[in-house]
């Protein structure tokens, strides 16, 4: 351990030594002994020149040396033993050895550097005038993903006969290089199942299977792909993938309680439905980007597209505006570019060529983007009765809120008027407490007078020299002006001070804070019972005209603001009350949540877009030094990332610059945009991408498994008008896609992760596919794309539904209510994407909770029952055919004779066992049924702003299963039902 004195001395000496100019001898020593060693042995990892600053340390400038690295000062001039750098080169500490392994300096080099530090580390190097941005060097630019996308030649392979599409040639080339051959084609059943799940997230129907098996034409699979791509369920499946990238949620996140009035987004779902429609329309991906970033700025755009802007706004609503901006920078850069630009918020990106300036260039764009007070209307119901019902319900809640507003204002202002002087004196002493004495006195007053500290803070906020009420006091205590001058000013005609306050001051000669404060007691005493009338006047004012004595009103509303009822829209009320102290907000307990609830659950509710707009005065942002908002550096023009620009990026000029940003992203010249998209599409088809970190293809990511293929596909994708459907088709028609998943013991050893794609990967159904499949099995799936909460088909889209709780919705899972603050346990146990931020790749875990859901949940049981109740099952009596029908439903194939035999055996045994069903189970079932009924009655009327959405409907009946139902349930538990192979 360093002794303290040594430590301090070291630091002081360092500054001293650097301050003095080195002597000629010292320069000579540095140039001959030190610089060559640094340059040859250290710069490789620690220099701006090389763009490397490992451990945050650069050694090729005096400033870099002085600054030190992440583990501290590199050197303490004059103290070799206390210098990390010398410790490191001496290999004295096991954890700190530099240069690393095998490159240890020679003893004489170590001796030279030690001697140099001992003499005070004289450094004659002049500072470089303009240092390069860290990392933004040619080397970092060389990363494959930053190179332009070029169309590679299709490789020549030996087994040309095997290849059907160029995709095959690229994959086969790498396999052949390793002496490997691809697995044989998948069975037709497996292929159809794979393709249907891939494109629709649903299983094929038995009819589709039989049709495909019967179709011997070479075009059979092409027809399948075309049919699937044309299905409206395609959009539902692929939109969900994008929603993972877009960190979609129906709630704001953050503190989650009933008092959080605006915890839910009432219109997030309009963005979700827009995404679904865009996929179904095969909207070109460049358009898809432009719309989501700048729909409001595109010429001749439709109103419907305003919903696209939800991409920007459905993120977590942090209290700090800079955190919101950060969320937006993060989703744009990870989502579209596969770059972690948000790392550059506090420092230049550690690994990628993204200087902090880049981050603040984007910061300016989003700082200049606002959410308009009134969201664009997308649609209203055509059902007049529904609309009217909605209107009335809304009006009732809004009126309730306004009443609360006037009540709370009355109460709080009255609280102040009881003891104005106490609030002013204690408040001032506390805020300005220059001594402990002041502080104690203030605390004493607060205790004795039982003051409300939060209210006191509000009062203090008005303590400004130009305030019509507290102005005179502010001039005295903050401005230090003479009382006589202040009082004299009150007499002047131009005085802005409230006449009632001025009246109280008339003739007085206050000299102290306390005496000043007392005068306010007098002023506010004049309010008396008039307060009630004033508030009443505001509460009943028609169209903005409040007939009331303005002078008196100023006193009545102090320290808050009275707004006329005609001006008090819900938005305005939110805005005003949002600035109130928390206690006061709690007291008011506004029913904003009820409004959200109504918007989210009433079929007559209008739909609106979570749009953004440009701020009136767009502005550039200054760099926050080390991410700290209060330490500002240079201003950075709003512009695109430097590494992705041709030469110096040009400043954006149109408003916030969002459209220009969108154009820079949605550009064929952008090397990342197409590659990121292609990589994700590939990932969803094969279980893993070329690069397995789909949201980061920067320098820290692994090299792509098939670099030429990702480029070929990216090029093709752009050439084909950014059409995702064409991309799917190209991929799916390849032999590679149609491989079977059969394993090969030798390849399992050499390429266990199947990076070379010698076979198809078996994949577990994700949460949505699994849940949707259950509904397909049971025949309950609601296939409507747009449906409102309570069932009406609305052209505007569909409010979110509850997926996991009884009574569970029959809609597809993509329409589920997603609460980022409280993701249902079921969804997280099935690896649903965390909607906190962009998470395009889901993990695939296997935990007992997944098993418990399938074994015990009312939904799974209900599905088993309904399978047996399906007409094609119920109508047949004979076991073999029944088993066949059940297999067709659950596995989309015919059972083998063994499987039928096993099934019949099971049913026979079950029939025998069930006749002896014990009475205790009957009791259990009855109890369960009662519990469930109780639960449902509790659930009703418990909706508020922070809870999950409740669906209408019946709970699953608690009744034990018949042998056939038990059988169907067992099949649902099997691996085959949950896996695509």
């Amino acid at each position, binding site marked *: *351990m*360093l002794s303290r004195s040594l*430590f*301090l001395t070291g*630091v002081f000496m360092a500054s001293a030594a650097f301050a003095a100019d080195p002597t000629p001898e010292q320069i000579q020593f540095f140039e001959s002994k030190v610089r060559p060693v640094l340059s040859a042995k250290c710069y490789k990892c620690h220099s701006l020149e090389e763009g490397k600053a490992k451990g945050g340390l650069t050694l090729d400038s005096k400033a870099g040396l002085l600054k030190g690295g992440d583990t*501290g*000062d590199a050197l303490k001039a004059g103290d070799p033993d206390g210098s990390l750098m010398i410790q490191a080169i001496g290999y004295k500490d096991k*954890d700190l050895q530099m240069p690393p392994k095998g490159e240890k300096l020679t003893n004489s080099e170590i001796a030279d550097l030690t001697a140099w530090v001992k003499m005070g580390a004289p450094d004659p190097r002049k500072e470089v005038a303009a240092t390069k941005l860290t990392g933004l060097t040619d080397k970092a630019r060389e990363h494959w993903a930053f190179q332009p996308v070029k169309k590679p030649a299709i490789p020549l392979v030996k*087994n040309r006969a*095997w290849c059907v599409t160029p995709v095959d040639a690229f994959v086969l080339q790498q396999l052949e290089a390793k002496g490997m051959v691809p697995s*044989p*084609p*998948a*069975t*037709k059943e497996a292929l159809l199942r794979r393709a249907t799940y891939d494109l629709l997230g649903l299983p094929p129907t038995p009819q589709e299977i039989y049709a495909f098996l019967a179709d011997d034409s070479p075009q059979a699979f092409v027809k399948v792909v075309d049919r699937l791509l044309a299905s409206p369920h395609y959009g539902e499946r692929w939109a969900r993938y994008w929603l993972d990238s877009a960190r979609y949620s129906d709630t704001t996140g953050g503190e989650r309680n009933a008092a959080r009035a605006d915890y839910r987004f009432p219109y997030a779902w309009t963005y979700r439905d827009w995404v679904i429609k865009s996929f179904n329309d095969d909207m070109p991906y460049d358009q898809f980007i432009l719309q989501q970033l700048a729909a409001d700025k595109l010429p001749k755009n439709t109103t419907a597209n305003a919903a696209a802007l939800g991409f920007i706004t459905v993120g977590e609503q942090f209290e700090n505006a800079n955190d919101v901006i950060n969320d937006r920078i993060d989703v744009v850069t990870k989502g579209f570019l596969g770059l972690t630009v948000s790392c550059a918020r506090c420092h230049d990106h550690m690994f990628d060529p993204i200087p902090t300036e880049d981050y603040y260039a984007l910061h300016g764009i989003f700082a200049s983007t606002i959410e308009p007070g009134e969201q664009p209307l997308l649609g209203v119901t055509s059902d007049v009765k529904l609309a009217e019902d909605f209107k009335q319900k809304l009006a009732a809640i809004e009126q309730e809120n306004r009443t609360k507003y006037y009540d709370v204002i009355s109460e709080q202002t009255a609280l102040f008027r009881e003891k104005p002087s106490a609030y002013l004196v204690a408040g001032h002493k506390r805020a300005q407490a220059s001594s402990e004495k002041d502080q104690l006195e203030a605390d004493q007053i607060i205790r004795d007078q039982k003051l409300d500290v939060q209210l006191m803070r509000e009062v203090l906020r008005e303590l400004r020299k130009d305030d019509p009420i507290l102005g005179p006091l502010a001039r005295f205590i903050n401005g230090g002006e003479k009382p006589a001058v202040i009082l004299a000013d009150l007499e002047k005609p131009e005085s802005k001070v409230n006449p009632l306050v001025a009246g109280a001051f008339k003739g007085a000669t206050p000299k102290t804070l306390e005496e000043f404060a007392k005068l306010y007691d007098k002023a506010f005493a004049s309010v008396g019972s008039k307060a009630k009338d004033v508030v009443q006047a505001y509460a009943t004012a028609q169209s903005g005209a409040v007939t009331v004595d303005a002078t008196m009103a100023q006193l009545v509303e102090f320290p808050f603001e009275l707004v006329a009822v005609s001006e008090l829209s819900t938005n305005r009320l939110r805005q005003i009350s949002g600035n109130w102290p928390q206690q006061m907000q709690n007291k008011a307990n506004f029913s904003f949540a009820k409004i959200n609830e109504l918007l989210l659950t009433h079929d007559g509710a209008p739909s609106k877009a979570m749009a953004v707009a440009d701020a009136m005065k767009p502005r550039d942002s200054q760099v926050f030094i080390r991410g700290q908002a*209060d*330490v500002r550096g240079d201003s950075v023009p709003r512009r695109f990332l430097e590494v992705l620009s041709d030469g110096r990026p040009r400043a954006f000029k149109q408003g916030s610059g969002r459209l220009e940003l969108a154009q820079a992203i949605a550009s064929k010249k952008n090397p990342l945009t197409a590659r990121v998209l292609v990589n994700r599409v590939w990932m969803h088809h094969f279980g893993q991408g070329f690069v397995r970190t789909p949201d980061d293809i920067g320098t820290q990511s692994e090299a792509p498994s098939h670099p030429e293929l990702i480029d070929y596909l990216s090029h093709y994708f752009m050439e084909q008008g950014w059409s995702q459907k064409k991309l799917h088709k190209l991929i799916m028609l390849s032999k590679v896609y149609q491989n*079977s*998943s*059969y*394993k090969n*013991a030798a390849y*399992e050893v050499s390429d266990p*992760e199947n990076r070379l794609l010698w076979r198809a990967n*078996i994949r*577990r159904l994700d949460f949505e596919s699994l849940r949707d499949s259950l509904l397909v099995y049971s025949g309950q799936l609601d296939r409507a794309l747009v449906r409102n909460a309570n069932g009406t088909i609305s052209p505007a889209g569909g409010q979110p539904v509850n997926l996991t709780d009884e009574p569970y919705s029959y809609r597809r899972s993509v329409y589920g209510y997603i609460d980022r603050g409280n993701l249902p*346990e*079921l969804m997280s*146990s099935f690896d649903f994407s965390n909607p906190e931020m962009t998470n395009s790749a889901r*993990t695939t*875990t*296997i*935990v*007992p*909770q997944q*098993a418990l859901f399938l*074994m*015990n*949940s009312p939904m799974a049981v209900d599905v088993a029952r309904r399978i047996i109740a399906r007409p094609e099952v119920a109508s047949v009596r004979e076991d073999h055919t029944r088993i066949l029908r059940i297999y067709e439903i659950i596995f989309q194939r015919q059972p083998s004779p063994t499987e039928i035999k*096993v099934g019949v055996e099971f049913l026979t045994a*079950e029939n025998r*066992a*069930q006749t002896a*069903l014990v009475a205790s*189970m009957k009791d*259990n*079932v009855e109890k369960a049924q009662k519990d469930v009924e109780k639960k449902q009655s509790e659930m009703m009327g418990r909706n508020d702003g922070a809870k999950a959405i409740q669906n209408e409907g019946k709970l699953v009946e*608690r*009744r*034990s*299963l018949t042998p056939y139902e*038990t059988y169907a*349930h*067992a*099949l649902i*538990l*099997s*691996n*085959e039902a*949950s896996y695509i192979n």
Partner: protein
Amino acid sequence: MRPDPCSSCSEKYLREHTAGADDLIFTRRQFLERTGMGMGALSLASILGLNVVDAQGAPVSAATKAMSPLAPRQPHFAGKAKAVIHIFAEGGPSQVDTWDPKPILDKYANKTIPGHDGLAYASPFKFTKSGKSGIEVSEVFPKLGECIDDMAIIRSMWTDIPAHDVAQRFMNTGSLQLPKPSLGSWVVYGLGTENQNMPGFVTLGGDPEWRQASFLPGVFQGCNVNYRQNMPLEEVLLNIRNQFTPLDRQRRQLDLAAKLNQMHQKAIQQDAQLEARIEAFEIAFKMQTEATDAFDITKEPAEARTAYGTSDLGAKLLVARRLVERGVRFVQVQAGGWDHHAGLDQNLRRTAGAIDSPAAALLKDLKQRGLLDSTLVLWGGEFGRTIVKDRNGNDTPGRDHNGRGFCAWMAGGGVKGGTTYGSTDEFGARAVENKVHIHDLHATIMSLLGFDHTKLTYRYNGRDFRLTDNYGNVVKDIIA
């Protein structure tokens, strides 16, 4: 394997190339070789869960149990610790306010200290010598102070990057960036678990990343339970009870599914995921009886309930003990809230107060039951805090992140009680003496469990991985 480009339908291939038993055994052996456990002869039946099919619902045989990847295994050498309870103090507890007193800061209060940006912030808390060992304990931990003679305080922890997500990942997985298996997953991979009716690794809260199995087989992943006291068990463990089907009938359902799974595996060949899923169903089935009991703290005597306190955190630690008692290998309890950028005086006191009684009760309870010797209790966060005031905590001071020095403590499981290890510099800002890096801490935990951390490896993608990457030194001085 030969491609068959001519056949549009490869049923013929399927028939001819369906994996036989040999292939399956090979794959299974390979799986076990990867685990480095060398468990000898294998039973195909056990791999595929055939025992449950053939036994017609009879209890799983001991021989079969031994084949399960979760079966208990011997470590490299005899370790005292058999189970771990990790109390993760997420947020970054301040060292100078908890376990590393630095009275000199009083002298520098509100002054600058060379080498540190900002004004020094003296701890608002008093420290008193406690126990026979006389280790100084902060006033925020009065109850833990009573246990100090069972605890080893490490005062010289350090980590690489003081940002929450990265540092938390590091503490829980030993990896800064890439997804790697969690500490708990490694432990269960190494030791298996004592109770085949429960998951081997249970977490009570925390980020999914901290319990991930990553490239280890899925059965080693932590099973998270959103436990709150007084929460009906049906909500604690969703779907833990079946309201429709009695257990014996459900057993028959699972047996049928297992039989079908076997045929399915034969058709598409062995796969670790499919095996893990079979295992998950078996555990789930047994959890219905076993876990119900473990999570039911109403079965505890009143004095135990009182000792652990009435908070959720107290109840969680009590559940942790019940889990360990039932043979769960690794329990992680999320006990965060330590990110005190502002209002440290009040807020740290509150956060510490929340864990003080429960943690002390846990240590005493384990000791009384004779479980402390075999249960390692670990408390610590992802990094420490600055000795100067946080720039953003204007009115009420707090401290900013600091990765260069922080504290952790361990108790039980063969840890030398009543000791402190390592030290920070004079002001408590950075570890200087006997520094303990995260990798060192992990190496020490593994050593207490009986593992040479350099030898517990898993071969993946052509290379052997281990929890400690290429680092880690066992802190021998805190091992009894």
